[in-house]
């Protein structure tokens, strides 16, 4: 198998795929909102950000929801073409799904369609109603999806237990303290204080509070587990040539990507303290020519502190085994050496299912476009590392994103 995957486009290519707009609705519990309404609103927000209208779109890529099979089917069968007035105009509308890493794969797919000419402008849409869904249904879903029915369901496995198995091994292998693990959650909460769209905006957190919360799945405390939320995000990608033709002077290109599928069943992961991150990072850095020192910010999937700590080690942001202590040092905080998860991440902005990773991706693009607002815009951001993972942390996916602006600023 090939060890390297050279990109067929570069920053000078007319068909270089670029992000030109993003949209987002607040995350949290919003029983007054609804699924199709939110998808429509967030799609229009992203298009307005891209200075476009729906008829500028020829392809819609849908990110799945996990709250309802019926809503899923609606999306698959092109409902959004009707809602956005694109009947007879749209070339295609379809779904891509790899759980929490879907957004990374949606970017790869949209990029391929644009670079090859199968699409000119792709609208990617996501909405999840986890926050308002029936709690019993959610408990059932989180003990079935991504868990092999023949081999692991009979043990009583569920998602907090999966997070706990990773956390226990990570703490053992790296000798990270409970305080260091809790500090990851506190860093995310610090960022959420700068994001009015975050579920925990206005609700600060301390290490002491995390460790005083009840134990859910040893060694995880309740405040180390993600809170299910409603949310919606969207983004628009097109070719660099089309973006320029439309008079846009700021866009975000994909400098490279890398991935590694390390298991499907949590019981089959050879090293729960490593997962696929080092391999995915190596592949992404090789494709782009970047190293970890080349980015000013990062947005890394963060349903549990250990998942993120393992990722930052694999990505080379710190020495091996130092991920949690690196967060505890404040390196990823507002004003830190490498700001991470600047929207508050899934642990503090809200876990919007498959959309949690999409929200992190959109935050990275927003920062690179310089549109994160006066409170949390990181100054001088040119490059961002995005990391995602799906299912039972079955894969590690890395996207390397870079700002392209007229005059190079």
């Amino acid at each position, binding site marked *: 198998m090939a060890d390297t995957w050279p990109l067929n486009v570069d920053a000078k290519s007319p068909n270089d795929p670029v992000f030109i707009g993003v949209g987002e609705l607040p995350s949290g519990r919003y029983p007054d909102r609804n699924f199709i309404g939110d998808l429509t609103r967030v799609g229009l927000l992203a298009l307005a950000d891209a200075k476009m209208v729906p008829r500028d779109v020829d392809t819609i890529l849908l990110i799945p929801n996990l709250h309802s099979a019926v809503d899923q089917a609606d999306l698959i069968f092109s409902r959004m073409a009707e809602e956005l007035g694109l009947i007879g105009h749209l070339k295609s509308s379809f779904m891509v799904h790899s759980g929490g890493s879907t957004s990374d794969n949606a970017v790869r797919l949209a990029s391929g369609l644009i670079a090859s000419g199968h699409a000119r402008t792709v609208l990617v849409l996501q909405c999840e109603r986890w926050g308002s869904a029936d709690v019993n249904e959610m408990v059932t879903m989180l003990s*079935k999806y991504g868990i092999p029915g023949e*081999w692991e369901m009979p043990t*009583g496995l*569920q998602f907090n237990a999966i997070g706990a198995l990773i956390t226990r*091994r990570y703490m053992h292998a790296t000798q990270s303290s409970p305080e260091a693990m809790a500090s990851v959650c506190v860093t995310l909460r610090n960022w959420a204080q700068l994001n009015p769209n975050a579920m925990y905006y206005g609700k600060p957190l301390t290490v002491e509070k995390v460790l005083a919360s009840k134990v859910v*799945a040893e060694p995880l405390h309740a405040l180390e587990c993600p809170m299910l939320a409603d949310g919606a995000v969207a983004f628009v990608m097109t070719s660099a040539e089309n973006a320029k033709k439309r008079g846009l002077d700021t866009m975000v290109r994909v400098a490279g990507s890398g991935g590694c599928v390390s298991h499907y069943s949590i019981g089959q992961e050879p090293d*729960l303290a490593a997962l696929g991150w080092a391999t995915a990072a190596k592949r992404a850095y090789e494709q782009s020519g970047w190293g970890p020192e080349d980015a000013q910010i990062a947005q890394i999937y963060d349903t549990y502190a250990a998942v993120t700590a393992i990722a930052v080690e694999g990505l080379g942001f710190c020495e091996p085994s130092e991920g949690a202590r690196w967060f505890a040092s404040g390196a990823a905080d507002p004003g830190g050496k490498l700001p991470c998860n600047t929207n508050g991440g899934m642990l503090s902005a809200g876990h919007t299912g498959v959309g949690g990773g999409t929200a992190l991706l959109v935050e990275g693009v927003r920062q690179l476009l310089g549109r994160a607002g006066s409170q949390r815009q990181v100054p001088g951001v040119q490059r961002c590392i995005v990391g995602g993972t799906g299912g039972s942390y079955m894969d590690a996916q890395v996207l390397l994103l870079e700002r392209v602006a007229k005059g190079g600023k």
Partner: protein
Amino acid sequence: MSHNPIRDEFRAGLARGELLVQKCNDCGGLNMYPRHACPHCQSSSLGWQKASGRGVLHSFTVLRMGAPIGFEADLPYALGVVKLEEGVQLLTRLVPDANGDWDSYACDVPVEYVPMSGDSIACQSAAWFRHTSSK
């Protein structure tokens, strides 16, 4: 439930008190979890080998709330990833210590397979392990 001889034979083993590991009749490779074709050589000629039952605990957790439907009465209960000495691994339930908790457990401790009754396996077909020095 759909027809699935691999699953059913594995579970029948557990019900007899035997932990089975799939063995390829062509390349001799061991597969866990059992597969429909050998992942090493793609052969469809697959059999079983009785596992030694000895291994080490890669990681574990004690679930204290939020059990899936059907497991509520089991709370609290412990799950572990066990690496068998044969070189394959699986997710298991862990037998508590005499005090009803799992204080003697830690990552990398030696663990051994504990056969359960056929009735118990018919209800929840999971493999159970315990800390080798915990009785």
